[in-house]
């Protein structure tokens, strides 16, 4: 393999990995705070992609306005999902909320099929994001660089909110003990809504960037990226934001590099991702950067 090719693969992997990371953060955030795996996350991601399609294609809004609007609308959807499907189950066993999230996932997918139809739709991309830059034979889309940058900016923003602000403090408190937090005068419901809103905003950002990178959207587009991001979140240690980023990038690199070095194995790309999940669960269930959960007595 020549150096040029390796660099080309490196950038391909960096973009894919950052996209996984963005989606994985949403999983990890909700899990970290509520101990709930939100399987509808991939579908919220899909909604984000559709909102950007509609704001751009139907209402012809300027691109940046569309992005902001899509993120706001998607977070709103995330909050509604939490209200309707998870809040009533907050005191129920954890498995009930998990099943509820699977239900929400099917509901959103099938609603999307009815509303948006199953026909794939093209996404319009602003020219400055897709004008190819060529450096010594390596061809890079500006988008391929913008995605990782956006990813790190959003993660930094998120870490700031979680560790440096009052609502962030409340979130971390809720993750330790909901009842005690409530006794301390924190409005638990509002904070949890905020968590879902933030998680969904990240999913929307992921969905928008995914749609820019792979400009074709359809109602089931969230399924595979959702699963992959889940693997990424577990790989990095579910509950840890930094872990999700590391896991996402790692998964992206593994997927691309397997094909790059062993083109004959390209059909087994997904198999490797899922084997990785099983291995991690067997060897280090808390993931690369996950905290050890102590049993409360």
């Amino acid at each position: 393999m020549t150096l040029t090719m390796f660099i080309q693969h490196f950038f391909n992997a960096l973009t894919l990995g950052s996209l996984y990371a963005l989606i994985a953060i949403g999983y990890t955030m909700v899990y970290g705070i509520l101990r709930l795996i939100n399987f509808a996350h991939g579908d919220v991601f899909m909604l984000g992609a559709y909102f950007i399609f509609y704001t751009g294609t139907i209402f012809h809004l300027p691109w940046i306005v569309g992005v902001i609007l899509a993120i706001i609308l998607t977070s709103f959807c995330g909050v509604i999902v939490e209200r309707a499907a998870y809040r009533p189950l907050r005191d129920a066993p954890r498995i009930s909320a998990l099943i509820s999230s699977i239900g929400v996932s099917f509901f959103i997918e099938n609603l999307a099929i009815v509303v948006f139809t199953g026909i794939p739709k093209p996404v319009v991309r602003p020219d400055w994001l897709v004008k190819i830059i060529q450096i010594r034979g390596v061809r890079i889309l500006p988008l391929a660089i913008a995605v990782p940058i956006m990813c790190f900016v959003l993660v930094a923003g998120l870490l700031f909110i979680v560790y440096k602000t009052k609502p962030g403090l409340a979130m971390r408190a809720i993750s330790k003990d909901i009842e005690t937090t409530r006794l301390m005068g924190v409005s638990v419901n509002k904070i949890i809504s905020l968590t879902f809103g933030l998680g969904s905003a990240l999913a929307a950002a992921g969905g928008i960037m995914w749609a820019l990178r792979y400009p074709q959207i359809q109602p089931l587009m969230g399924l595979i990226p959702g699963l992959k991001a889940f693997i990424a979140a577990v790989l990095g240690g579910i509950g840890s934001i930094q872990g999700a980023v590391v896991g996402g990038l790692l998964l992206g690199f593994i997927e691309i590099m397997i094909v790059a070095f062993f083109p004959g194995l390209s059909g087994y790309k997904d198999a490797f991702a899922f084997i990785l999940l099983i291995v991690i669960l067997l060897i280090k269930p808390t993931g690369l950067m996950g905290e050890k959960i102590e049993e409360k007595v």
Partner: protein
Amino acid sequence: MKLRNVLLAGLLVMVFAGMAMAADVIKIGVYEPMTGQMAFGGQLTVDGMKLAQEQAPEVLGKKIELIIVDNKSDKVEAANAVKRLIDKEKVVAIIGSYGSSLSMAGGEVAEKAGIPVITDSATNPLVTQGKKYYFRMCFIDPYQGAAAATYAYENLEARKAALLVDVAQDYSVGLSKFFKDSFIKKGGEVLPLYKYQSGDQDFTAQLTDMISKGADFLFIPSYFAEGAIVMKQARELGFEGDIMGGDAMDNPDLVKIAGDSAEGFSFTTFPYAPEMPDMNPVAKKFTELWNAKYPDQLPNANSALGYDCYMFVRDMIEKAGSTDPEKITEAFASAKDWLGATGSTTINESHDAEKPVGIKTIKDGKQVYAASIKPEL
């Protein structure tokens, strides 16, 4: 995922059970992917059938009722759909499905029940192989693969081909094999197969490798939604050779998604196109009817095949003079020179329709009918 499908199927059964009425009608079942990954193909096909039904709503003095079931682009659902059409709706014949994998799943069920089925566009040879009750309105992949290889080698002067195969689709696996065999026979070189699975969106690793190995031609026997993304990524990565695909690329939305990257792209397809020069009278009529009903959308080959399938089943019921599935099957098997929008149809011994292969090219963002090819196998 499977549990969900079972639940959904249950719900659908409940909905449709309410609709089943014992009226004096002849029921023809349809199972097509109306949702999911292949929805674009199924929907266009069903549009064609509906158009045909408006034209010829009756047979043997009875009204024809089309019972359309969504197989959700899922193999398990496809088998369930056929089972329901036969057990619950008691249809006398079935049309479907777009997608070879789906047709194969449904075919097993129909074969056991002894109900004749005709597929509009499933081109994998295995769909009808060894089946008594399964037929098709289209050519098969060995034929299509040979046509594509001929066009690639002779017209496009490709010498070193790369193939990107969806290992989860029988259509893709089959067509790539036939293309490869024919292309090598012509004297071309084929790189080891590059693979992916349905649902993948990132093909950059495979494409980067292919470009570095000096391929001058790329064949993508996939469905158009993925095909469009492959084209885009290939051009972004700097691939300059010609790209070709199969009949599953024949969709008006291909250009919308792939944009400039689709320029120069060619694909093999069924011998129907609205811009085709010498159309037969049925094709002309179909085009007129379509333009009157769907003025904003051009008809494509899948709609024409859907139209033909309905008309064919209707005519064969009339020819059989009965709604007995056995008699209809006999009529299907002995059909000769039946004229449809996609040309004259003769069902051969392996239950395939012998038709020439059409080649279309994207030029200035529009599909152009480039040639009809009858390859030597």
